[in-house]
C-alpha cells in the first residue's frame, strides 16, 4: 500500500498503461495510485483516447471475396432463436428509437420500406411512451403491425439496475410474458417476439424482480402522424 506511486511516477508510466504494455509491479503500483487520484485517471483517459484514435489512421483494404458472408454466418451461428424472428423493419425502428422521436420513427421506417416493401406497414406503426406510476417517461415502445409480431423497447436508463420482465396483453385481461431483460448502467434497447396469446398487443407493463409493476404503456396508433413526419 505505502509503496504506491506518486502522481509524477504514475504519469510517467501512463503512456505505457494506455498502450496496455506495462506489466507486473509497475502496473500494479500505478493502478493503486489511479484508484485514489482522479487527476491521474483523467490524464490516463486522455492518453487512451490517443491510443484508440491511432488505428483510425490505418489505410482501408478490400477484404477477400466472400468475407461479408462468412462473417455474417459466424455471427449468425450464435444468434438466439428469437432474434431471427425480428423482421425487416427492425433496423429502422431501432434506429428511430435510438433517436427517440416518433416523427423520425415514421420517417425512417418510410425510407427503409421504400427500398424493399410496400409502404402500408409504415401507416400502421404503433408507438407509445412507457411511463412509471407517477406518469414520468421511462422510454418508448414501438410495435409494427406487419406479419411479424415484434415489440421494440427503448429505455432511457432511469430504471434502477436489475432484472425485469416485459409482459403484454391483448384486449383480454390476461397478461403474457414477452421478454426478460436486465437494466445495466447504460440505456437499453431490445426487440422481442410477441406471443400469440398477447396479439394484437394493447398494453405492456414492466415488472421488477419483486413482482411490482414499475412501468406500463397503452399502445395507440400514430399512423396518421406519419405523413406529417
Amino acid at each position, binding site marked *: 500500500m505505502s509503496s504506491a506511486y506518486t502522481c509524477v511516477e504514475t504519469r*510517467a508510466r501512463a*503512456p*505505457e498503461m*494506455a*498502450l*496496455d*504494455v506495462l*506489466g507486473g509491479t509497475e502496473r500494479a503500483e500505478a493502478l493503486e495510485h489511479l484508484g485514489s487520484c482522479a487527476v491521474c485517471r483523467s490524464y490516463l483517459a*486522455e*492518453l487512451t*483516447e*490517443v*491510443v*484508440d*484514435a*491511432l*488505428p*483510425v*489512421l*490505418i*489505410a*482501408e*483494404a*478490400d*477484404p*477477400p471475396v466472400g*468475407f*461479408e458472408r*462468412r*462473417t*455474417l454466418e*459466424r*455471427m*449468425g451461428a*450464435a*444468434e*438466439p432463436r428469437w*432474434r*431471427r424472428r*425480428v423482421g*425487416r423493419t*427492425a*433496423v*429502422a425502428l*431501432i*434506429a*428511430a*428509437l*435510438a*433517436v427517440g422521436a416518433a416523427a423520425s420513427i415514421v420517417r*425512417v421506417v418510410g*425510407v427503409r420500406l421504400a*427500398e424493399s416493401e410496400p409502404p402500408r406497414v409504415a401507416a400502421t406503426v404503433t408507438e407509445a411512451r412507457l411511463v412509471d406510476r407517477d406518469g414520468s417517461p421511462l422510454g418508448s415502445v414501438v410495435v409494427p403491425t406487419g406479419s411479424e409480431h415484434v415489440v*421494440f423497447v427503448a429505455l432511457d436508463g432511469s430504471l434502477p439496475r436489475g432484472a425485469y420482465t416485459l409482459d403484454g396483453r391483448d384486449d383480454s385481461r390476461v397478461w403474457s410474458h414477452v421478454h426478460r431483460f436486465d437494466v*445495466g448502467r*447504460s440505456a*437499453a*434497447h*431490445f*426487440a422481442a417476439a410477441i406471443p400469440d396469446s398477447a396479439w394484437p398487443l394493447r398494453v405492456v407493463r414492466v415488472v421488477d424482480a419483486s413482482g411490482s409493476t414499475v412501468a406500463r404503456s397503452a399502445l395507440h396508433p400514430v399512423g396518421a402522424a406519419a405523413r406529417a413526419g
Partner: protein
Amino acid sequence: MWSVSDDALLAGLAAGDPDAAAAFVERFQRRVYGLALAIIGEPRAAEEVAREAFVRVWRHASTYDPRRGTVPTWVLSICRSVAIEHLALGPGRPLDPAGTLPADDTGGGPEEAATMGDDIVRLRDALDHLPPDERRALSLAEFQGLTAAEVGARVGVPVFTAQSRIRAAMLRLHSALAREGGRGEGGRA
C-alpha cells in the same frame, strides 16, 4: 443507400437484427480488414482476425458507450486487441511490422480526410512530424503490443531508451489532440 447513423446501426446489431448486422459489416469491413492486415501482414490470418473482431463487436454491441468515443474508434480498438492477441499466441511476430503507422500518403484518401474530425487531422499531422525512432517505438507498442523491453530488444537499444521514445511519442500526440481545446465533436465527455 444506407443513411442510418453508426450509432443506430450498432443499436440494431445489439438487438440482433440481421439487416443491421449485414449493413454494419458492409460499412466497416474495409476499415477492420485494413487494420487487421496492417498488423498481421498476412491475408488469411488477417481475415480470421477481422472476422473475430466483428463477432466480438456483435457480442458486446450493447455495452458500447458513446461518451467514450465514436463507433468506428470503438470497433477498430476491438480489432486492434484481437490482432495483438493473435500475434501473442502465434508462432512469431512479423519481423518488419506491417503495422507501422501510416505515412502521409496512406489512409482514407482526400475525400475521406474531408469528413474526418479535426482531432484526427491534427493527430495525423503530429504523427507525420514524429522523429522516426519515436514513431517506430510507438508503432511497435501500439500495433504489436510490445513492452518497452521488447521494443528495446527489437530495435537494439536499452530498455530505458525504448521507454523514453514511447513516452515522448505519446506526449507529442497527446498535446496535438489537446491543442485548440477540443476533445473533438463526437460528444465525448
